[in-house]
């Protein structure tokens, strides 16, 4: 099938297949799935700047499906999601501007590819270590008290304690996430970080935001998944408009991918009911490495990186 907007010829079956896989993963882990979809699209032959924009559009549509499902399951903290929006949008715009700057210098493919791979590997290692440590702490229930509120069993709580004790008014509370009092700036900071990576590397940046919600704000994993999807809709929606204006979105590719993702997202979201927080995080850990491996292979295969 020809896609004249980006000027490529791609099989719709591959696009639907990729959409289905990232749909299942997105529904289950609350992430956009760009850590797999972006390398896969790049491998199929889509230029990197189109990968970033198109992936954002596809993720927005898919997240609507998964977020609706999570909302029904009571996993979305709407107040937290809305408060984070300011930081997220500012971050997306910063990231999109950085992509434009790299495009002007013809460095987009190499820099974005290398940065994306490094972040994905670091993230995998950290989440794998943390969730294994949390699961090893036997003899306790599935939850632990952090700063007076009941949370998931988390091994790494240093950042949560720092974020909760950050003293800069105004303060906000998120009862649905078990947060009694936290500085608004800490919440906006998490939104800004996720938004920046969303605008820079494409996708909803759930691979950054979901762990940030758990490890920085101390949001229970199930609520982090649902709230992240809610945030992904906003950040990916804004990113889609921003990148479409800059000519980085092939909406036809996104629409084809989304036909597979719609089914996958429903299956993934329903499956979260069967697992506890640390197990979901442990299952998530190897996935970013998979995305990084595909990306690194592509960079070498296309001669952009040499040994």
């Amino acid at each position, binding site marked *: 099938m020809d896609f004249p907007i980006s000027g490529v010829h791609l099989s719709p079956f591959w696009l639907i297949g990729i959409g289905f896989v990232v749909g299942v993963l997105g529904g289950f882990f609350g992430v956009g799935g760009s850590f797999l979809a972006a390398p896969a699209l790049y491998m199929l032959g889509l230029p990197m700047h189109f990968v970033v924009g198109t992936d954002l559009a596809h993720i927005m549509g898919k997240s609507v*499906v998964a977020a609706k499902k999570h909302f029904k399951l009571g996993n979305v903290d709407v107040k937290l999601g809305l408060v984070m929006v300011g930081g997220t949008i500012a971050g997306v715009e910063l990231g999109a501007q950085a992509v434009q700057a790299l495009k002007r210098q013809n460095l987009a493919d190499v820099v974005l590819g290398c940065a994306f791979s490094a972040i994905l590997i670091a993230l995998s290692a950290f989440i794998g270590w943390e969730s294994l440590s949390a699961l090893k702490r036997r003899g306790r229930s599935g939850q632990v008290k952090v700063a007076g509120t009941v949370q998931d069993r988390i091994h790494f709580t240093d950042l949560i304690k720092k974020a909760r004790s950050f003293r800069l008014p105004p303060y906000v509370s998120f009862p649905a996430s078990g947060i009694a009092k936290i500085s608004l700036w800490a919440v906006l900071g998490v939104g800004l970080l996720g938004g920046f990576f969303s605008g820079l590397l494409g996708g909803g940046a759930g691979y950054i935001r979901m762990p940030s919600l758990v490890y920085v704000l101390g949001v229970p994993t199930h609520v982090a998944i649902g709230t992240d999807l809610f945030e992904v809709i906003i950040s990916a929606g804004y990113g889609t*408009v921003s990148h*479409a*204006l800059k000519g980085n*979105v092939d909406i036809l590719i996104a629409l084809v991918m*989304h*036909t597979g993702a719609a089914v996958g997202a*429903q299956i993934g979201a329903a499956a979260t009911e069967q697992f506890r927080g640390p197990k979901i995080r442990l299952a998530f850990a190897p996935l970013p490495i998979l995305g990084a491996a595909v990306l690194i292979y592509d960079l070498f295969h296309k001669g952009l990186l040499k040994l």
Partner: protein
Amino acid sequence: MKKKGGLRAVGSYGLLLLEVGVYALLVTGYLLLVLQSLRPFLLDTFEHWRILYACLAVLLMLGQGFVLEFLTSLLVGLFARTRRRDGRATSGVS
């Protein structure tokens, strides 16, 4: 008894396959009719009216998101209802 259970399981999976088949047929029709006919229009807006293209991109994704969510929920619901009915039939036999 085992044979009956096995036949029922095959029936359930057969139904799932049928529903996936129906979904695949709908998607193929959608790809051929809607996307093919939208292609020249979207290319034109991409080249000449970028703001309109950006708005259309968001609207199309959201619209397709809601329509496909409705469609898949319907199919998954149908499948779950059939499974429940089969389950009740099994317990009745036992």
